[in-house]
């Protein structure tokens, strides 16, 4: 609102300075062609002979030049600063936008975290805990019939052992979903190598020097690759997959490209939403490029200062 009239005035000044030079030159050259009694004027000076024409136009050009060198740049700078101050988002506004983004991703992260905790609680309660109760029961029963019916005791003990093995199996599966053990053992590079080695379509893994990363970043990157590989195998009909991992100025970039049919549909439980949620929770960015006909590229960028 304030910007427009100010810009207009500054613009007029600049224009006047620029126009003065050709105008003064023209007047100096053509003063004689003016009709009698209506001489050409330069400011308040009537041009009626060659000497007046020369000194008056020279004076105007000199003033214009002086203004152009000394005054216009200063005005232009003021104008630029003023416009910038008026139009660009203020530091407060930028901060507000950032806070809003963070609040959203944080809420998402907390939701995801809560849902994860509920799932783990349910798995432990319905699975492992129930199994331990059943094992305990069978051990107690076996103890009771140990001397009177040894074959029955042996059968109960076998059942107890089967139950214990099933519980261990479930726990292992659960641990894998919380924090993949191979990630703890070998870091992201090693874990990705293991993923690549076990993937169905052949995988080419190109990993640069990524150094030490925050655990949360490693987990998000690992799951993104794991999901992308699963997608490539399940929906994409891919025959080869290429994974590149690089760390560029405080950002970990993981790119998974497959040569499948493309056209990934995020709304159809393709696991991409899961990747987005995990990545956004860490203030990262997920990009999915999957035109019909392929190829599909999923890129995940995670800040890791």
């Amino acid at each position, binding site marked *: 609102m304030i910007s427009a009239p100010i810009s207009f005035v500054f613009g007029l000044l600049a224009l006047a300075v620029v126009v003065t030079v050709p105008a003064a030159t023209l007047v100096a050259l053509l003063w004689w062609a003016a009709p009698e009694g209506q001489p050409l004027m330069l400011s308040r000076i009537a041009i009626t002979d060659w000497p007046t024409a020369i000194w008056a136009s020279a004076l105007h050009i000199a003033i214009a030049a002086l203004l152009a060198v000394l005054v216009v740049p200063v005005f232009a700078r003021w104008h630029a600063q003023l416009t910038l101050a008026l139009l660009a988002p203020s530091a407060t506004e930028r901060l507000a936008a950032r806070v809003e983004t963070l609040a959203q991703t944080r809420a998402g992260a907390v939701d995801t975290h809560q849902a994860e905790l509920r799932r783990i609680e349910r798995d432990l309660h319905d699975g492992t805990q129930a199994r331990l109760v059943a094992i305990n029961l069978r051990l107690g029963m076996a103890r009771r019939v140990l001397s009177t019916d040894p074959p029955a005791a042996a059968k109960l003990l076998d059942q107890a052992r089967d139950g214990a093995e099933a519980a261990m199996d479930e726990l*292992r599966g659960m641990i894998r979903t919380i924090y993949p053990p191979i990630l703890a053992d070998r870091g992201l590079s090693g874990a990705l190598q293991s993923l690549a080695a076990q993937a169905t379509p052949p995988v080419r893994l190109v990993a640069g020097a990524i150094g030490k990363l925050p655990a949360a970043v490693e987990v998000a990157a690992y799951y993104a690759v794991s999901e992308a590989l699963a997608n490539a195998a399940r929906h994409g009909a891919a025959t080869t997959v290429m994974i590149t991992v690089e760390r560029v100025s405080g950002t970990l970039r993981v790119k998974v490209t497959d040569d499948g049919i493309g056209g990934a549909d995020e709304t159809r439980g393709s696991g991409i939403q899961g990747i987005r949620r995990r990545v956004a929770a860490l203030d990262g960015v997920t990009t999915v490029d999957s035109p019909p006909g392929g190829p599909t590229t999923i890129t995940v960028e995670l800040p890791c200062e």
Partner: protein
Amino acid sequence: MRVVIAEDNVLLAEGLNLLLGQEGHEVVATVADAAAFVAVVDRCRPDVTIVDVRLPPSFRDEGIRAALAARRTRPDLPVLVLSQYVEPAYATELLAGGAAGLGYLLKDKIGRVEEFLAALQRVAEGGTAMDPEVVTQLLARPRDSPLDGLTRREREVLVLMAEGHTNQVIAEKLFLVESSVHKHIGNIFAKLGLPSSDIGHRRVLAVLAYLNHT
């Protein structure tokens, strides 16, 4: 047998001591970290060793590295590696130095006492004991390969062979006579194009390498 155990979990270390003692084996040392393991193996010259994958200080894969380090100085040292989870990459690394006297089992399997003791015995005698889970994971990767040409029975034999069992044990487990196991193995090697070998650990290595790289 004289056994050295590297296990930092006190419950499991006690359990193993109890089990091995009950079976008449002598546990000459139980250590809780990788450095101590390498030192004690050098001093005690055990018949067989049991090593947990995760050991202090970082609880990553120290056990694997300790096993490999100990076998570098004493290549015929029998090592049975115990793990909370199966990682084919670890199996590959362990086997890179040869499959003789090497085992890689899930900790769950200790509960199957007879099988666990048999595996320990096999490793001590220079054989191989691969967890069925390792073999299953390697076989689970779908792909176009001569494996598809195997009959169901031949697949069963292949799995048991990859776990490190002898023909006799395979015959017992599948209720076959040994000669037909021998015939199945001949067919498997022919179908996969592998050079036939009857020496246990070399056979395991060939089969696992095949599963790992195709």
